């Protein structure tokens, strides 16, 4: 389990390792405190907390191993040494906008009173328009605001119509 270059910086690995150790320890404690069901005739080995306790312990141990490894790697190559991932990331605000649109649609757009077809059409149209425009600004796409707006509306309406029809009429699935 050694040899570089490492895909993730030792600092990130250590941080996640500490999360696993803490989570594993919390699960072990919660499992230990869990109702043993002795009144129902349970032994130690049939108690509901046995299995999650064992698994929590395994998580804490593996987390400890990861922490130890990140310390060794940090000593070898430095805390922030990571191999380049060979990918081009979009600016964080653009990613945050995408993630925000996903969450708003899933948490507030469906099942909260707005008709499904309407929220779906709005979500798809907004997503298509905003990201086509953003791609145009960095030279990854061609076209105009007007063209993108038309494309966005067409995609939104078509998706809402097709998904509603296919799920409700063809597959008899209830929509949110």
């Amino acid at each position, binding site marked *: *389990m*050694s040899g570089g270059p490492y*895909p*993730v910086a030792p600092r990130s*690995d250590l941080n996640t390792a500490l999360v696993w150790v803490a989570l594993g320890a919390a*699960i072990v404690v*919660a499992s230990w405190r*869990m109702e043993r*069901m002795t009144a129902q005739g*349970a*032994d*130690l*080995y*049939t108690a*509901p907390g*046995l*299995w*999650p306790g064992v*698994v*929590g312990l*395994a*998580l804490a141990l*593996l*987390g400890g191993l*990861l922490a130890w*490894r990140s310390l060794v790697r940090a000593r070898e190559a430095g805390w922030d040494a990571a191999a380049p991932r060979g990918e*081009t*990331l*979009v600016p964080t605000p653009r*990613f945050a906008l*995408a*993630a925000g*649109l*996903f*969450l708003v*649609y*899933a*948490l507030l757009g*469906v*099942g909260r009173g707005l008709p499904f077809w309407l929220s*779906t059409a709005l*979500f*798809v149209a907004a*997503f*298509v328009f*905003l*990201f*086509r425009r953003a*791609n145009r600004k960095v030279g*990854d*796409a061609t076209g105009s605001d007007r063209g993108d707006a038309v494309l966005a509306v067409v*995609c939104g309406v078509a*998706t809402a119509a097709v*998904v509603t029809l296919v*799920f409700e009429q063809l*597959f008899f*699935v*209830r*929509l*949110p």
Partner: protein
Amino acid sequence: MFDGLVAFGHSLASFATPMSLGLILASSLVGVIIGALPGLTATMGVALMTTLTIKMPSAQALLVLICTYVGAIYGGSRSAILLNIPGTPASAAACLDGHALAKQGLAGRAMGIATSGSVLGTLTGMFFLALFTPVLGDLALKFGAYEFFWLALFGVVIAGTLTGGDPLKGWIAGVIGILCASVGQEAVYAHDRFTFGSRDLAGGFNLVPALVGAFGFAELLMAARERALPVKVNPFDSVIPRLADVARYWKTIVRSGLIGTFMGILPGVGEDVAAWSSYAAAKRASKEPEKFGKGSIDGLMAAETGDNACVPGAIIPVLTLGIPGSAPAAVLMAAMLIHGVRPGPMIMTEAPTFVYDVVAMMMYATLGILLYGLTLTNVLIKVLMVPKPVIVPIIFVLCVVGSFAIASRLFDVWVMLGFGVVGYTLRRLDYPVAPLVLGMVLGDLMEKGLRRGLVLSDGSLGPFFTRPISAVLWITIVVVVLLKFDVVRGLFRRRPRPAA
């Protein structure tokens, strides 16, 4: 033997209806498109189609899912060859030589090789699926609680070891999956575990929304994070597979078919490992290893045969042991349970013809990919040209609707979102997601095996270690884990002799 052939003939005939043939054509097409689109994987495709087919009769629903699965693994090769972007992780090996051939103006020939390799690989795996399943089913009847515990653990450990570049992170992902499976009421006393008073959580995490999140939503977040570069497609020649290529590389086809099937049978390993293993074996056996990576037909044939042979191979442990051989097979197994099929050692007793139904479904799926392999190239190129900002929101709508459709509750949409965020975070930190899925699927089996075994042995751990099959399994697990540590590997490494 003849009973099997007759049952297979009956199964083939039972799907030869206009409705079933229409579903085969549609779902193979959906599979090929999902596989071809970079960022959308076979697991995601099968998970989404599971939600769509929830109200269908079980045979037709499983037919759709198997065609989607086979189609997606095949479809990945198209974008690998034309764009140098693997459509699915399984087709990453095909990028090396497939795209090199495309750059030499031989994209059509490369696609023909991918088609012949995929078809023959699926047929090889299908042959072993029909041959091994009844035999392994009989063997599986000898398995008790102890053996199932170790087998399930073996699946998670092997998936963690082989599916990512970092075994330690793979094992951690597997353990997190097992923990997720322990949320909700436990099986013996119906005691709520880690539910925090939530009635929704008492039933545990529904597997399909969790998988749609871990594979679907997480992949969409990855797609939103990475910059989409303009698509550039190489020109291509005829895509008709050449018999001469098949005849010349028949040894590669047989070898890769066997390796792919074997990798499929290993719990949790999956198509990408099958493709790389077949590719490496072909390179070792080749008289022209220097051509690998520069447009070797041998290499492309090996990768494509191996990953498609893995599909039927991965279904063998599903049917015989109730343990999936790959992440998409895990979703398929969940779908079987939803549709009232109980995969596992009793399948040959409870539903002996079902195995042959699955083989027949595989046969039709193979015909589907052959048909689309010959005809779909231009359409597929147009699909590949659709910009990412158009595809991403549409897939997300399907993730939301699909998660909701399983049980008509918004809680499952939240589960999908939660697992999506977890899956995305794990990927960014270089944790593989397949072991997490295996852990979620096998966690329950492991717990039942442990608790049942302890009850049977009156609290003694002895039988877990002394029964013959158990002993083989735990020793294998220990060896697999220990061999990942340099200290242990160093003990077996040959030391250079000191100079005289």
